């Protein structure tokens, strides 16, 4: 077995970069900080590739399953006699896969940002935060136990907060960052409660112990029941709540579209490829517990994923901000992954969904990062997010156009690009798992193709738009990452995932189910066709259709009024109905009582002070009378 202790360096290098750049960045030339950040990440990426190579091919004898290896671990905090928080790195197929995904995308984003962020105020801050994020995300995937995961989970949340609010002078960015943090924080509350419940019942945080089929989690799965579900199910549902928050699943998704206020490379890295799939990773990490111990919780996962994917796809069809379209598309695709996990079983072919989910995660990271970076290049060129102000850009931005098109085809699921393979596996898994969800996914596949090509045509085709200054292609430092990612999007599908990343570590066969694949491709083509018909040239068709379905269009355009609902709950209920009365209550009732006590004292003293009249004779009179009374009482009446 290979020694993987060095994997701990993968997160630590970005951390060192963060500290170094964060403390000294303002003293160096901006470009230097960018280069340091990129170099650090490149180093981490190389290490990640070496790890992957070692794990999957060198240190592995063919035919046996992949085991999970605890490469490194130290105690961080003792909690109870059983529970200790440890920090370390756990190497197994999904963590290695995630390492590759994160370092690759992060490296591309770093390189891209050197160009994209040029001349921005706070250049070094940007790279420091990117390194912080990379550190947190890598720490998250390497977590050996669920509490370590929670720790890094919070850290990615904060990195995301800092990066969304990067343009902190823009009120909308500040609001968005706040929203992102608080919504995910709320979800994390569920995660934390889930962890507390799970760890209390199993006496461990450790993933290896938890997921072991003979471990306490799965063997004690029955447990006490509460409202028809076992304690284990409840804790897993709570944990999934955390995952749903981070992965922007319905109804905790509202922060994701707003998070697009951050710089575009951030959206590519955090809100498309890596952080938002943390929820998927979390469920995958605990998958044996879900699958073997609490199938009820897994159903929840499946349905939440399915609903989110449809919901987001519908909204994506009507949005006009290109980054928001991509955000909803991300949400929809993550819904796919969740659904795949939800319908999956454990072991062998049963675990097809698990494999498909991870596969899709991998390919999605490539093409979605590509889409965002491409969108970034477009925004860079025209200084606007709004696609109604774009059109016919293909001749100004040839490289961007080509790579964007590749990404669109990939996400639409046209063979032989990678999206086709991973999506196909998901559909097969859904077909085997749950027919209702399967049909939803078919619909979503069509919608996906439609809105992606709507986006594509609106940007690169359509009307000839007049720009303030002629758009120009991005510099090489930005286009090279696009090309690399395009390459990944095309060929990632040929990776033998069914041999590498499976629910039980053992490889299995996945013949392509043509009966499912062909209709899905046809539906995708249909979507593309409709989009081509509607948006390739400027026609009145879109408006007519929007008019025909005016209610649906309006609801979709307003994101089904989810934001308004949340706003109502937070502003009206929490602020005005809880917080304000609490503040009032405190000032007037609690403090009023205290002041009232003081007031009573004062009132009494005002009343009593008349005795201190300064009149000697009055004193003398009271004294004499008192003396007489005392004599009377003590001599005669006692």
């Amino acid at each position: 077995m290979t020694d993987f202790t060095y994997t701990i360096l993968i997160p630590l290098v970005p951390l060192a970069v963060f500290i170094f750049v964060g403390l000294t960045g303002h003293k160096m030339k901006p470009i230097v900080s960018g280069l340091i950040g990129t170099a650090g990440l490149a180093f981490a990426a190389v290490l990640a590739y070496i790890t992957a190579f070692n794990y999957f091919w060198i240190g592995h004898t063919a035919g046996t399953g992949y085991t999970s290896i605890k490469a490194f671990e130290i105690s961080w905090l003792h909690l109870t006699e059983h529970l200790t928080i440890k920090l370390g790195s756990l190497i197994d197929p999904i963590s290695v896969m995630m390492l590759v995904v994160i370092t690759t995308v992060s490296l591309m984003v770093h390189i891209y940002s050197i160009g994209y962020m040029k001349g921005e105020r706070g250049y070094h801050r940007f790279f420091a935060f990117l390194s912080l994020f990379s550190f947190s995300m890598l720490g998250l995937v390497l977590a050996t136990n669920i509490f370590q995961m929670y720790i890094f989970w919070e850290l990615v949340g904060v990195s995301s907060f800092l990066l969304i609010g990067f343009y902190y002078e823009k009120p909308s960015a500040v609001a968005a960052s706040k929203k992102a943090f608080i919504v995910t924080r709320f979800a994390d509350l569920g995660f934390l409660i889930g962890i507390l419940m799970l760890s209390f019942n199993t006496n461990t945080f450790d993933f290896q112990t938890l997921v072991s089929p003979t471990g306490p989690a799965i063997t004690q799965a029955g447990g006490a029941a509460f409202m028809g579900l076992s304690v284990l199910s409840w804790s897993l549902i709570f944990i999934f709540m955390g995952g749903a928050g981070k992965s922007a699943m319905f109804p905790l998704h509202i922060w994701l579209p707003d998070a697009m206020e951050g710089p575009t490379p951030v959206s590519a890295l955090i809100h498309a490829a890596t952080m938002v799939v943390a929820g998927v990773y979390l469920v995958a990490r605990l998958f044996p517990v879900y699958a073997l111990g609490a199938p009820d919780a897994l159903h929840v996962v499946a349905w939440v994923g399915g609903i989110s994917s449809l919901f987001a796809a519908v909204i994506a069809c009507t949005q006009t901000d290109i980054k928001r379209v991509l955000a909803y598309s991300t949400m929809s695709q993550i819904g796919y992954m969740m659904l795949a996990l939800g319908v999956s079983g454990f072991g062998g072919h049963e675990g097809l969904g698990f494999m498909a989910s991870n596969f899709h995660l991998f390919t999605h990271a490539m093409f979605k990062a590509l889409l965002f970076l491409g969108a970034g290049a477009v925004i860079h060129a025209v200084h606007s997010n709004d696609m109604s102000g774009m059109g016919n850009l293909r001749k100004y931005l040839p490289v961007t156009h080509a790579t964007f098109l590749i990404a669109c085809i990939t996400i639409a699921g046209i063979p032989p690009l990678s999206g086709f393979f991973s999506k196909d596996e998901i559909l097969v898994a859904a077909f085997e798992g749950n027919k209702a969800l399967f049909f939803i996914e078919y619909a979503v596949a069509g919608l996906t193709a439609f809105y992606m090509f709507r986006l594509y045509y609106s940007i690169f085709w359509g009307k000839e738009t007049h720009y303030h200054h002629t758009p120009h292609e991005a510099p090489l430092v930005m286009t090279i990452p696009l090309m690399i990612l395009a390459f990944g999007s095309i060929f990632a599908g040929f990776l033998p995932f069914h041999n590498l990343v499976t629910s039980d570590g053992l490889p299995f066969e996945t013949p392509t189910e043509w009966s499912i694949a062909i209709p899905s491709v046809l539906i995708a083509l249909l979507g593309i066709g409709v989009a081509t018909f509607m948006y390739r040239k400027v026609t009145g068709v879109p408006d007519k259709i929007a008019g025909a379905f005016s209610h649906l269009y309006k609801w979709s355009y307003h994101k089904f009024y989810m934001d308004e609902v949340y706003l109502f709950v937070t502003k009206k209920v929490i602020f005005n109905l809880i917080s304000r009365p609490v503040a009032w209550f405190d000032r007037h009732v609690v403090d009023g009582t205290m002041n009232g006590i003081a007031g009573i004292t004062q009132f009494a003293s005002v009343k009593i002070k008349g005795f201190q009249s300064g009149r000697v004779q009055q004193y003398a009179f009271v004294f004499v009378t008192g003396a007489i009374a005392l004599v009377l009482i003590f001599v005669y009446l006692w």
Partner: protein
Amino acid sequence: MNSELMFFILAGMILIFSVMTVTTRRILRAAVYLLFVLISTAGLYFMLNYNFLAAVQLTVYAGGIVVLIIFSILLTSHISERAVVAGWKQNLLSALSVVAGAALTLITMFNYTFTASSEPASGSSVKDVGTALVSYGDNGFALPFEVISILLLAAMIGAIIVARREKLKIEEKEIRREN
């Protein structure tokens, strides 16, 4: 001469002039009535055969204190001035209280039998008094004598300090002005 008659005359004078002291509206007269009371009291002391005490009463009280009082009256008010009387409420309440107190005390006294001692009386001549005053031991009063002398000294100094015109105040004012 009938000693009882003597006693009643003295007692009557004491009571009448006491009442007049506290009721008259002319302050100077009050002082004179007080003088009569004090002289009558000295008479009682003579009756009790305490001649030295009676003499002290006459010299210190009647001679010293009353004169002091009269001086202060002359310093602070005009002869013709009538004292302001207290309101009827105050008078009534005080009278009630005083009558109650007197009644209470008298009742208490009458309910108690004092048995007169038949021991032979010790001498109370000036010589005896003087000896006792400077001797110590069982029947010596040297310590109270010393204490009272210090008290008198203190009172004297105190009275001077209190009564003299204050220069301090002026100095303080000057200091304030400088600031």
